Structure formats: structure tokens, C-alpha cells
């Protein structure tokens, strides 16, 4: 290839990459702008205080937070031990690889599948939609994400950590508890919040399981509203005032996810800087 041709190819590649980035940028900016422009005028502080019957979205916000917090804590209880057990020191490489494959598959499974599965189970057991059912289903959606991300956090630990702690006479359990967890903390926090972010924005898994209501949740056995389903249902109504609530809910959801992402990044950065 001649030199001018190589230079031309190089320029072409740069344009192509720039173009792709530009298209992405415009699409996201458009999406953001439309959510902000439609949502912002309707997002009043009073909305955050009243529930659906009072014209607000407090029920959906509280519902989403309950679902997200409950499910991510539950998922943590499963994901952390699983990720610990999949460390090199415990799991033979073949098992760890197989587990990673399965987790990737589950990660990619549409959450409506989880929802449908949980719904079938609920019908079979004769259980109604409730906060508890929503939390359990959402936790199922979160576990693969959290476990996979935590496995990566452990995997990225330097082998010297294990070697030198072992040489000092530490057992595998002691190394995990006293050294590896601490060293991997930023990655573990990121994994937790990644799963939380995925869960709180998810509508499909809670569609059949958490149900929908205008009211604040009273107990674990009550149906509960959520921001994604608030958007889904209210946008479908012809009433513009109800629709405006959907826009406000969408904006609030966006702010929530953005907040969680920013906090997780800041925490991870802080933890790695102050890592003892």
C-alpha cells in the first residue's frame, strides 16, 4: 500500500470512529433532553410528598427504593460468598470458567424471563403480587450481575497477595477475610452499585411480581409501585396530567441512577486512594 493510501485509510478510519461517536452522542443527548424537557416542568417537590391518589409519585419512588435496596442486599448475601468461592484459591479453573459462562448467560437473559418464571412460581404457590415477591425476583436479576462483577474484582487482585500472605502462614479463609476483601473493596462496591443500578431501572421483572398500586407500601405482602412501571402505565393513559406524572417519574429515575453511578464511582475512587 502506498503512503498516501495508508494516510487516506487512517483519515477514513478516524472519520468513521468520530462519526459513530457523534451519532451515539446525538442519540443520547436527544433522549436526555426529551426526558428533562418533558419531566422537569412537572417535577415539583410536592409531587415527591404525595402518592398516586394525591397526584404525586412518592409511592413509586418509595416503592422503587424498597425494591432496589431489599433486592440488592439480598443479592449481596448470595453474590459475595459465590464470588469468594469462585476465587482461584478455591475453585479449579474449569469450574470458575463454567460459572463465568453461566453467569454471563444469566446476565444477558431478559428480565421479563425472570419475571415470568417468578410469576409461574407464584401462581403455583397461590401467592399474590407483593413487595416481597418483587424483591425476590429483582434479587434474582441482580445476582448474576453482582456475582460476575465481584468475581472480576477478585480476579484482578495480584497473585502476589495470595503468595505472600500464604507464605506468612495465613489460611485461605484468613487471606480472604483479612486481605482479599479489603484489597478488592473498590471493585466490590462498584459491583454492588452496578447491580443496584440495573435493578432499580428494571420494569419487566417486577411487572408480574410486585404488582402496581397508587399507595405507599404498607407491608412486605402488599403490592408496590415502582418508577419504571409508573412510567410504563401512566404514559399509556390519554390523560395529559397523568402523562406528565410519567415524565416526572422518568426524570426522577434517571436522576436516581445517575446519583447511584456518581456515588459508586466516587466511593471506588476514594477507597482506592485511601486503600490501607
Amino acid at each position, binding site marked *: 500500500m502506498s503512503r498516501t493510501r495508508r494516510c487516506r485509510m487512517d483519515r477514513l478510519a478516524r472519520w468513521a470512529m468520530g462519526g459513530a461517536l457523534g451519532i451515539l452522542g446525538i442519540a443520547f443527548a436527544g433522549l436526555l433532553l426529551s426526558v428533562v424537557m418533558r419531566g422537569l416542568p412537572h417535577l415539583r417537590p410536592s409531587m415527591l410528598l404525595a402518592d398516586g391518589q394525591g397526584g404525586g409519585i412518592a409511592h413509586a419512588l418509595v416503592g422503587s427504593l424498597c425494591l432496589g435496596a431489599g433486592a440488592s442486599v439480598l443479592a449481596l448475601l448470595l453474590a459475595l460468598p459465590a464470588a469468594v468461592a469462585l476465587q482461584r484459591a478455591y475453585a479449579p*479453573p474449569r469450574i470458575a470458567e463454567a460459572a463465568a459462562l453461566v453467569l454471563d448467560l444469566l446476565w444477558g437473559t431478559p428480565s421479563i424471563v425472570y419475571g415470568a418464571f417468578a410469576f409461574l412460581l407464584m401462581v403455583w404457590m397461590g401467592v399474590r403480587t407483593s413487595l416481597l415477591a418483587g424483591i425476590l425476583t429483582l434479587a434474582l436479576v441482580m445476582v448474576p450481575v453482582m456475582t460476575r462483577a465481584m468475581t472480576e474484582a477478585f480476579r484482578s487482585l*495480584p497473585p502476589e*497477595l495470595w503468595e505472600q*500472605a500464604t507464605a*506468612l502462614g495465613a489460611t485461605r479463609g484468613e487471606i480472604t477475610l483479612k486481605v482479599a476483601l*479489603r484489597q478488592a473493596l473498590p471493585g466490590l462496591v462498584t459491583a454492588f452499585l452496578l447491580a443496584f443500578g440495573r435493578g432499580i431501572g428494571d420494569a419487566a421483572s417486577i411487572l408480574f411480581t410486585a404488582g402496581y398500586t397508587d399507595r405507599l407500601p404498607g407491608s412486605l405482602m402488599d403490592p408496590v409501585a415502582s418508577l419504571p412501571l409508573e412510567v410504563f402505565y401512566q404514559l399509556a393513559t390519554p390523560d395529559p396530567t397523568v402523562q406528565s406524572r410519567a415524565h416526572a417519574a422518568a426524570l426522577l429515575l434517571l436522576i436516581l441512577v445517575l446519583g447511584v453511578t456518581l456515588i459508586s464511582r466516587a466511593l471506588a475512587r476514594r477507597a482506592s486512594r485511601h486503600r*490501607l
Partner: protein
Amino acid sequence: MTHIHIKNLHVAYGSHTVIEGLDLEIPDGGIVAILGPSGCGKTTLLKSLNRLLDLHEDVTVRGSVLIDGEDIYAPGSDLLALRKKVGFVAQRPFPLPMSIHDNVAFGARLHELPTVADRAATSGTVERHLRRAGLWEEVKHRLDAPAKGLSIGQQQRLSLARALAVEPEVILADEPTSALDPLSVRIVEAQFRALRQDYTVLLVTHILRQARRLADYVIFLYDGHLVEHGPAETFFNAPVDPRTQAYLHGEIS
């Protein structure tokens, strides 16, 4: 003094044999340098002595290593006691994610040594071993600071202090100066020289001059085989094997 006796040791990673039929009695006390070109099995030999090889996948060890008469590869041998007795300083230091103070106390606390029974005892112990590793003066005002903040040279001396605090009888050191700047090398070498009175130090090195400076006894490996071993003076001045002679003359490195 602890006595190490290696009998017919074979080590292989998968199908690749690294050490083949090695028989050796290691003299007690002083600095024993393990010399040889890279890839000849020096580090593998070293890590076979505290069973750190166990961490590698796919490794097979045959033969026996007797430490004070006990075969450390016998089924059911006490690995924690072995690693208490045989300390290790790695090629690249890795400070544990905790303070300088806690790094030094870490191993001793695991083994519940009386030297770390309470706070006062612990701080005395930490000071003693940091002094021994030649690091005390530099860190005495920031013992609670994260160990990650130390320079590489300081981290390596911290590794030494950490290993010493477990009160081992043997110290295995795997090219402990290879990642260090010249000044740190001098400091670390001085610490090792000071240790030779009380410990058996096995020092893997591929730096001939370092072995000349430090060694009391030399073991020369070539391609997984033990070629020659003997007191440093004899080894350097009157080597017998032609491969040793070639190595000492810089023809193989």
C-alpha cells in the same frame, strides 16, 4: 539450627519438568546463595521449601524435603507450622492492604505469638523488626499510614520485617533486590548480612556479584540439575564442573 535435607526432588509444571532428581543437604546457618541462569529452577527450588508451590495449578512434586527430620511433603504435614518456621521474601514486595504497623504484626498475630499478645508488646515487636530490617528510622512517625505509600525499596524492607516478625528459623529470599534501585539494594544486602548470624538464609540470585558479596555457601543449578555446591570460597576460586567454570566466566548467563 534448622536442618534442610532434600532427597531426590522432582518438580514439574504440567508435563514440563523443572527440577529433576535433586539431592542436597543445605548447611545450617549463614547465607546460602542459589545461583544459576534464568529458568534453571532456582525459584522453584526455593518455593518447594515452604510448599508455596502448592498455590500453582498443575504442579507435581515428587521426592522429599526433610526439615528438622520431618518430610514436609508427607501427607498431613502441618503447613502453617512449616510457614511459621520458614519465612519468605518475594521478588516483588507486596504490602498487605493495611498500615505499616499491621503489616509487620500480621503474621505474628495469625500465629498468636506472645510477642503480639497485647498492644504494648506488639508495638515493641513491630519496632524491633522494623529496626532489624533497617526501616524503623524512616517510618517511625507514620506507623499507621498505609504501607502502599512506601517506596519499592522501603516496601521490600517491610516485607523482610514482616517475615522476621513471624520468628522463622529459615528465610527464603527470591531475588529480593531485583526490583530495587542501587541504594535500596545496598541497604537490603546489609540487612541480610546482619541476619546470617541467627538464620539460615537461602538467597536466590542471578547476580554473580551479589552472590560473591553475600554468600557463605553456593548452590549452582543448571537446567533443573544440581551442578555444583560448596563453600563460597571454594566455589568461586576452584570450581570443578566445566559448566560452573563457564558460568563464572560469563560464558553462560
